[in-house]
């Protein structure tokens, strides 16, 4: 398909979807969202882009091989679990860091759970894209 309107629209939409996916990823700990849904939304962005501009361009925009992204994501998720060893806890024990915590507020909480979620995000993104790209290319 070679429609200028579609390509221009798809570019805009892909960016919006990627930003929204990052928002979904970050709000996931206490509200609906998280790595899985974030990864799906990000994948949608790239899929829209691939439909409009072709998978070759989409692969270029992704920069890395989707399979490798999924592999790296799995590694990051695993790392989030293994991190617990530095604190002497059991595998996958969540570790928390409260930046600027005072008596009344907890400040900015950062956790190994977020790292795990980023891993999931990448796994979903990579897996969905490697499936859709190969399907798209097979057609």
């Amino acid at each position, binding site marked *: 398909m070679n429609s200028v309107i579609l390509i221009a629209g798809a570019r805009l939409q892909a960016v919006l979807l990627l930003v929204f996916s990052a928002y979904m990823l970050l709000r996931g700990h206490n509200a609906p969202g998280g790595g899985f849904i974030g990864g799906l939304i990000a994948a949608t962005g790239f899929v829209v882009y691939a439909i409009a501009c072709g998978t070759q361009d989409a692969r270029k925009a992704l920069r890395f091989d989707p399979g490798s992204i999924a*592999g*790296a994501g799995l590694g990051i998720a*695993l790392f989030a679990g293994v991190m617990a060893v530095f604190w002497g806890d*059991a*595998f*996958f024990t*969540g570790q928390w860091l409260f930046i600027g915590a005072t008596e009344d507020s907890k400040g900015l909480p950062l956790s190994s759970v977020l790292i795990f979620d980023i891993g999931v995000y990448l796994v979903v993104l990579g897996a969905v894209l490697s499936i859709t790209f190969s399907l798209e290319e097979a057609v």
Partner: protein
Amino acid sequence: MSWYLSLPLIIPFIAAITAFLLRHSALGRWVSIIGSGLGLLASLALMSVVLDAGVLAGQMGNWPAPFGITLVADLLSAVMVLITAITGFAVAIYALGDITERQEKLGYHALFQMLLAGVTGAFLTGDLFNLYVWFEVMLIASFGLLILNGGKEQIDGGVKYVALNLISTILFLTGIGLLYGMTGTLNFADLALKVEDVENQGLLTVVAMMFMVAFGVKAAVFPLFFWLPAAYHTPSFAVSAIFAGLLTKVGVYALIRMFTMVFDHDVSFTHTILLWVACFTMVIGVLGAAAQSDFRKILSFHIISQIGYMILGLALMTPLALVGAVFYLVHHIIVKANLFLIAGVAHKLTGSTEVYKIGGLYKSAPFLAILFLIPAFSLAGFPPLSGFWAKYIIVKATLDIQMWFVAFIALAVGLMTIYSMTKIWAEAFWKPHPDGIEPELKTLQNKTALLLPIAGLAIMTVIIGLNPEPFVQFAERTAAQLLDPSAYITAVLGDAS
């Protein structure tokens, strides 16, 4: 302490990820070997800890049982993890000579390590739903391995394999749901305590049967075995060796775990069914093997018949029978994986696995012939190899409780096993090759990588056979733990319960 439990799982995962990212370079295969080697060390460490402590339990993520995921290693889990690591290490080395570059690029090593992780996880988990998750990890990885770079035949086998395993999964999940509804828990230890209080014991038996069918498909017992001979002769030899050694045994392990710990409320009903299933599995498996002429198909049917012996050990539920079942499991994994590896070498030398079309191996490759004789005789139950002791214990257990007929079946099946092994021996090894080929081991590429694991596993078979005493003592301790899970329950739930 809990890291002893998680390391045998973490190592194959790391190896899988690294091997996947390196799949386009030759380093991937070394990652796989090093990963398997480290996994072996980790499972040895776990074994030594469990031998001291009896049962080792760890709460992942520090969420206390029965709410979080517990990893537990009692003697049975520890020995299964260890034997998985040994087989995995052997097959990882063998893969150097068997797996093509194309398969490596498609991610063979990553899938292989993933499979090892799945199997290890299934042995270590102390939670029913987590067991389901590990089954899925295993299923996905094994499906990938089955169809990797395959043609029609591989896809045909793979689809049958997955279709039946999915049915088993559905039953398994339904059973999990019902069990959770009745007891409010899925932790093995907690279940063992709570099933006694379930009001509707009849429904509990129904759920038990669902689990029996679900795990029965995985273990390939009669009448749910037909996916196995349809699939196991199609993939690469390294893949079929690891499948033959480990996959069905996870089903057997799950059966043993559930039907000694949780579903022991109506032994006279459930275990009688298991007894019949075991007898039919033994007989049908060995008869099926007699009708085959493909090296790997013969061996595949023998897996089924051997599974029958293990289920028989579980069905009798006497201490001696469980000793036999545990001993059989360990012996069988080593022997079976080894026979498939040998089939691979025979294929490379003679160009086929159809025993009527090949031959001459005894004359041209006598070393391979000796290496074949050890596991083949062990499988058939010749003294003094490991299979003899395994069969001896099981048969003695049946005689002790005067089940003459069952003992007769077990012995007759052993005799017919010899028939199939003789067929392979006479056709593939003794008779001259019909095309006049005289294949020599010298001509093999990567000879060391192919023969080293075979020799190693054969030596283990001989060691177990000549010196069975420590292994039997170990199996006795394991059986005692299975029959009295109080140590397991205390280790998981603490003394408070």
